[in-house]
């Protein structure tokens, strides 16, 4: 009876009065809608130069090529929300591919080899999480170390040679259709996107991610499990990087030690374009996914128009700058998604 002494008073006290309601879906997702519009405009601009850019075939190309980056970005987002950074995702991506291909060469089937590959993500995610939470090292330093180590292991596995995929059915992981009419890479993207978005928005543990990134000292005082939350973020990030590595080798049917080397910066770029702050506490899964999509559309456009592909980085840089400037000068403070 006394457990909730204050609560009783609260309930006896005030009758509900009109509370100003939160804005609807459009208001809550205004950053994301702006990015989506920007992507459409960008696609139309490319299409005005190269008409086949707007074909279904090219749409399939973009989603196919963009799926691994999108999945990796969702993982990086989870870490960024908690106020950390994960520089190791690209190396984990490469190492997963090499380990999986090598496992198949040793006679494992596609499923067994994939599980071993995901084990790479689990191990490196746990190492990151352990060093950040228990050892208390800075995330930048910790993931710089695992970036270097996983990157070098990716060469050591096959002594630097690329490795063809042994299981003839392995392409099904990426391009098969678990749901009729929808290739798996799109299905995986959608399921992960929706799951993570709902987790972040509706689950208490998801709100803890924002709380920890917003002020980890305050979150600690409030009894929120700060270390556990951060640990989970690093494990999830590495697992998703691993998974996107699997999707990629299932598509290319060949594993290379340097496959992921450009992906880490692209994933961080996607998260930033998607409205997350690298200082933590903000960002949405929908935003990060759209950021990844925008980067893919830019790369695809640069290729189609026939611009020297060395310009890709500059165009992506300009996109990040514009996204960040718009965010900086929009009126309201960014808040947790």
């Amino acid at each position, binding site marked *: *009876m*006394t*457990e*909730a*002494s*204050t*609560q*009783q*008073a*609260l*309930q006896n*006290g*005030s009758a*509900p*009065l*009109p*509370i*100003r*309601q*939160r*804005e609807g879906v459009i208001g809550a997702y205004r950053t994301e809608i702006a990015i989506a519009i920007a992507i459409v405009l960008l696609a139309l601009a490319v299409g005005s130069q190269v008409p086949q850019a707007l074909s279904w075939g090219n749409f399939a190309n973009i989603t196919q090529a963009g799926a691994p980056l999108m999945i990796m970005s969702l993982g990086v987002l989870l870490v960024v929300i908690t106020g950390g950074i994960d520089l190791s995702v690209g190396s984990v991506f490469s190492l997963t591919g090499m380990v999986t291909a090598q496992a198949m060469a040793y006679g494992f089937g596609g499923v067994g080899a994939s599980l071993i590959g995901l084990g790479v993500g689990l191990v490196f995610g746990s190492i990151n999480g352990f060093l950040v939470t228990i050892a208390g090292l800075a995330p930048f330093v910790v993931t710089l170390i695992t970036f270097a180590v996983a990157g070098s292991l990716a060469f050591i596995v096959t002594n630097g040679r690329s490795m063809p995929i042994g299981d003839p059915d392995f392409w099904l992981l990426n391009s098969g259709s678990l749901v009729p009419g929808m290739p798996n890479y799109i299905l995986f993207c959608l399921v992960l996107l929706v799951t993570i978005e709902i987790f972040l*928005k*509706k*689950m*208490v*543990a*998801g*709100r*803890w991610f*924002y*709380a920890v*990134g*917003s*002020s980890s*000292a*305050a*979150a600690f*005082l*409030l*009894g*929120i*499990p700060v270390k556990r*939350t951060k640990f989970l973020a690093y494990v999830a990030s590495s697992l998703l990087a691993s998974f996107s590595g699997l999707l990629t080798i299932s598509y290319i049917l060949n594993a290379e030690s340097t496959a992921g080397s450009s992906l880490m910066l692209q994933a961080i770029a996607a998260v930033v374009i998607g409205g997350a702050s690298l200082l*933590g*506490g*903000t960002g949405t899964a929908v935003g990060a996914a759209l950021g990844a999509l925008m980067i893919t559309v830019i790369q695809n456009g640069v290729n189609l128009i026939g611009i020297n592909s060395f310009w890709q980085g500059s165009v992506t840089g300009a996109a990040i700058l514009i996204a960040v400037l718009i965010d900086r000068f929009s009126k*309201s*403070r*960014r*808040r*947790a998604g």
Partner: protein
Amino acid sequence: MHDRQTFVVTVRGLTKSYGATSVLKGVDFSVARGEVHALLGGNGAGKSTMIRIITGSAAKDGGEIEFRDAAGNLRAEAEGRRTVTVVHQELALLPHLTVAENIVLPRYSSGLSVFDGKRSVQQAYEALGLIDRDFAACSLHRPVGDLSLHEGQMVEIARALSSGAQLILLDEPTANLTAAETERLFSLLRRLARENGLSVVFVSHRMKEIRQIADICTIIRDGRTVVNRVATSSLSDTAIVEKMGQLAAHAPTGTVSGARRSAPDGEALTIREEGLEMMLPPGTILGVAGAPAGPESLISALVGAAQSKRWSVSFSGWPQRFSSPHQAATLGAGFITGDRSQKGVLRSLPIIDNVMASRRVTRGSRLAGGRENAECFDILQALKVKAASLWDLPDTLSGGTQQKLLLARWLGVPSRLLVLEEPTRGVDIGTKKEIYQLIRDMASSGTIIVWWSTENAELLEVCDRVVAFDTEGRCAGIIDREELSEDRLADLTGMAA
């Protein structure tokens, strides 16, 4: 009220040392169900350490703690701790999350539960509405980072109220509140204590508030309990201060105006806004009273922190408006912020860098170190700051001592204007008197002081003149010392005290 008292928490012979310093040397403390209990003691007496041990965020070295439920049955320590909640002096807020989430999120103990947005808004509204219904109705979806310090304080208190705790420990909860909000908070706490058996422990250095709210008090001094559970009404102000070991400091500080009559001549600083002009001769102490909107605008204009066309100053060698705090500082306009934890103390820098920060700017120093060591040592001696080393981090000092570090930045610096925001927040009565004297000394050397305080009694004690702002942020009037009274201030600021 209660025929037999149940003690929700009892602490016996608690001891705690940090390294060689023993902070608690055997403290006794107990709180009965349904009482409002003042916990008193000077800075560094051990109040905060004891609170940390009760809530489990620090481990005890010796002694015992015992929690009981309403029927008087003993509880397990971990379970007992869950019935205690603390409103921290340094706010524990999540700036990116909304007001509603900040209030309700800590109530969830499992990450696997679904966060019910609609219900949490309702719950947050019920808690925050008890303090300020209008504020609650319009702010639940705002990110907490957009709130002012005092709005943040209300969120923090609402969180404690909605936590379902049996015992709430409030560590200087009124430091950031206006008089009207304080009044509302007090009547709410009294009601909850009376009707629902809530126990409240109240830490404050404001004697008037202690008398207003607390029935019972316990005084801690140097890590020992010197007064244990005595009716507040049975102790005179002098007796309380004496027990705290600060009698000397409490002695009347003599006539203030005498010192100031001898203030040097010189040019007056004129502060203007449309239809208003304030002339401040050298050595004037101008008080600023009222809800934050007005004072904040005046202060940020005076120190160059924000560009606003509302205020302008005229003074030889100064622009009408400072373009930055750097320009203000180099031209001799100092500023000591009221937001100690966020904007004041440089946490990762040692004490010496914290103290010398403003001097380095005003002098344009290129090198740190050298003669600074001796100078810093002298400054800290003058302020009676006890620090083991100048190279310790500020977090090794108590809250009140950190406040002194901020003051130390500008004390003794030859400046023409010094703007202070709540310079005595979190500071015990003895230290307060020291600070008053230090500021008066600066004034008598010709510095013009602008002093914002939400404690009207403090303005009465120190200021020559007070400019009062109403709750809308408009200037409501300027009162000279002869006409100053708490009623007058309460009247003009629209905040009944």
